[in-house]
């Protein structure tokens, strides 16, 4: 395996391609925008998403999904969840049964609550499918800081292939066969990142944050277990690990969305100034719909839905959350 296809040239896709390049693999990065493509191939930069970072010369931007996919044994999908299905459908035209696909996109399909790997299974012939997730802020990775990530698949060879191309002295790769848990963790943490941002924006301190993160983890786990996840996964990198980083760092997009809201900006204003996709907004809606249908108790996600999609005032929502009756903690945690 020499060549890896990366579909999606945003900040995370570019960072993944760069890790692959540094590890000695040829990374074929599908980038839609021609100027961006030219910049990557000629100046080894992607200034729109990762200003000031040099990319490995082994990262090559390509014009079509076909080029990135055709001769790559491994393909990594890193496109926003909103366009995941159409891109996967196109990918389905070019792939064959011996190819492997990893999804690094985090979220659910809104209308169906399907996970990204389920969409890959429906839109392509491939069976060897997995997900890449974990506490991985693109900028810190580009700076070469040590990190760890999780490659999950029901197919051992997919997890092994992911580890083979991504593992380095700067990046530890852990394997997991609980694909559902890893994807649910990666998707749902974005809801709590927005909540954490709001709390920060309101000027609330560490006590409040710890409460939200801990109870948020319980919600993730409840949804995950309903979908067949293993609860231990939520204690790992793709669960609490990812939740910690995204709720605690101003580098996290979803956190920044919350921060703006907490400081009194409207959702439109915040999203405009971000210039990138914040998955948490859509994920909140998807979880709201699913939890309602399945009668799963997710008070924080519900509160976030009221703020993001029902126009309720933040102060009112926080007040409501705090007024709920006392419950036994172990009932939810154990």
């Amino acid at each position, binding site marked *: 395996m020499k060549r890896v296809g990366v579909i999606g040239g945003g900040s995370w896709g570019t960072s993944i391609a760069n890790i692959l390049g540094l590890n000695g693999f040829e990374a074929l990065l599908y980038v839609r925008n021609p100027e961006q493509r030219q910049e990557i191939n000629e100046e080894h930069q992607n200034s729109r998403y990762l200003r000031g970072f040099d990319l490995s010369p082994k990262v090559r931007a390509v014009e079509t999904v076909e080029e990135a996919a055709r001769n790559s044994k491994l393909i990594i999908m890193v496109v926003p969840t909103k366009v995941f299905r159409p891109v996967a*459908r196109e990918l*389905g*035209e070019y792939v064959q*049964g*011996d190819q492997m696909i990893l999804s690094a996109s985090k979220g659910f399909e809104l209308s169906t609550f399907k996970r990204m790997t389920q969409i890959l299974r*429906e839109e392509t012939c491939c*069976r060897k499918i997995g997900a890449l997730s974990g506490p991985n802020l693109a900028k810190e990775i580009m700076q070469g800081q040590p990190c760890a990530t999780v490659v999950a698949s029901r*197919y051992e060879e997919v997890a092994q292939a992911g580890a083979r191309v991504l593992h380095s002295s700067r990046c530890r790769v852990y394997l997991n066969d609980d694909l559902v848990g890893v994807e649910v963790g990666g998707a749902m943490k974005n809801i709590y990142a927005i909540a954490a941002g709001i709390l920060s924006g309101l000027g609330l301190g560490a006590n409040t944050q710890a409460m939200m993160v801990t109870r948020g983890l319980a919600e993730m786990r409840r949804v995950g277990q309903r979908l067949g996840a293993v609860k231990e996964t939520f204690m790992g990198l793709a669960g609490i690990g990812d939740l910690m980083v995204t709720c605690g760092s101003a580098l996290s997009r979803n956190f920044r969305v919350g921060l703006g809201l907490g400081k009194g900006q409207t959702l439109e204003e915040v999203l405009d100034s971000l210039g990138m996709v914040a998955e948490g907004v859509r994920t909140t809606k998807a979880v709201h719909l699913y939890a309602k249908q399945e009668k799963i108790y997710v008070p924080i996600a519900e509160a976030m839905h009221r703020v993001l999609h029902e126009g309720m005032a933040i102060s009112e929502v926080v007040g409501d959350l705090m007024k709920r009756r006392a419950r036994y903690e172990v009932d939810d945690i154990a």
Partner: protein
Amino acid sequence: MKPEDRERIVSDVVGRILDREMRLAADDPSRLEEVIAETIYHELARLKREKSTPETAKETATLKKLRGRLLRVSETEKRDILKGMIRRFVNEVLGNFSPRVYQLSTRVIPAGLSLLLNALSPKRMLSNLPHLPDFQEQIRLKGEIAQIRSLMDKGTLILTPTHSSNLDSLVVGYSLFALGLPPFVYGAGLNLFANPFLSFFMNNLGAYKVDRKKKAPLYKEVLKEYSTCSLELGYPNLFFPGGTRSRSGAVEQKLKLGLLGCGLRAYINNLRAGKAKPRVYIVPCTLSYEMVLEAETLVDDFLKEKGKNRYIITDDEFSRPRKVLNFIQSLFALDSHIEITFSTALDPLGNRVDMQGNSLDPKGRPIDLARFVHDLDGKPATSAQRDREYTRELGEAVAQAYLRDNVLMSTHLAAYATFSVLVEINDQLSLFKLLRTGGIYESVPVADVVSRLKSLLQVVEDLMARGRVRLDEDLDGLPAEDILALALKYFGSYYSGNPAIERKGNRLFARQMNLLYYYSNRLQGYGINSLLERRNEVGAP
């Protein structure tokens, strides 16, 4: 099966299992001893459970002697001991496999079955013609029959029916004959041979015997390798992936993957051997009965306390000739019928297959199946973990096909409607208590059941329109009242004296709550309960 193929299968099965064990033993020096000791342990445990006879005593003594000797023998001797054990199992499995019988079976069984049914048939009076009766009315074949015919010469078939009754074997056997197909290699449980009344049919139909009391993993390996080898030689196979008759009456959703995986193994072996027709096709098929012969025993077993239920039942209705006769008589007298629906064929990974035998991806594009089993160098190879996952996905595809091609009949619908009304009016009882006690209220107004049945029919029609289930064609356009009347007739006749439900005046009385529950379970797996609820919420008429 040709005699030379039989020889070849015996030597292939022994050779392959022995090779596999020797490879494992190369990494783990205690392996051979462990496998032998494990097999002795399981065999001794089985012998202890069985009724003691001079043969079992002799066998026990031999095994105990071997166990004592095991510590002193060399590795070469261990290899020979293991080889002997495998050979013994293979011979046992194939012991009753007579090539002559196999050739004859399609001719003999249907004729025998016909004679039997003819003798019972009330129509006998009408016609004393020498020709055998036609079962087109009683056993209706539906589904992708043209595809089966087309695939017969493009690869090797595995037929995987649902399993409700011991009569399934006869029904499937008849169907294969009616379709003009060759007999399928079929491993039948020993208990099916125990009944003298039907052992004649079983002997002919079941090409080989499976002793489900033998728990040794080595024995199971032999069975799997036997199926794999026969598939590789082009003999179509028949498996019941549910493993045993459905106890609850529901369409089975948890399948035994061990045997299902043989198709993939045979396919990869065929590719490696460069065979001209390497492909293996899995054809799920659904058997739907208006009445199930053994329903009472099966559901009783299902409702037993955990741990007390039985995997193998030998003393059921099937072992009582009068019951079987009564059942078959009812089948004729009531114009009742059995539907056997063949689903679209699948490849060993669970992909749909077209008429020409090409695998299709979920979007219907043709795919190159061989690539799915390539190793890193692009050569076909087995990979235990990957192949387990492929087989799991195949199992899911088979289970989905079962639900899609399940034919809902009057007894299922009426039982569901009645039972759901009963559950509602007994809302202070848990399901278990309701079934145990028969409920506080054991009768309901006919009008309530008819109204529930009407809603149910609309939900079922919606599901049908989306291709998620089938409805018995005889019920098409029939009003709810008539469907209920039909079901009451069936229940009243076969379960004469103690029907599941009985009408007295304007009320329906649940006489056998368990049976009601059993037949209603055929509608499980579609989320019908919540679909009915949703209809009520939106205030549908």
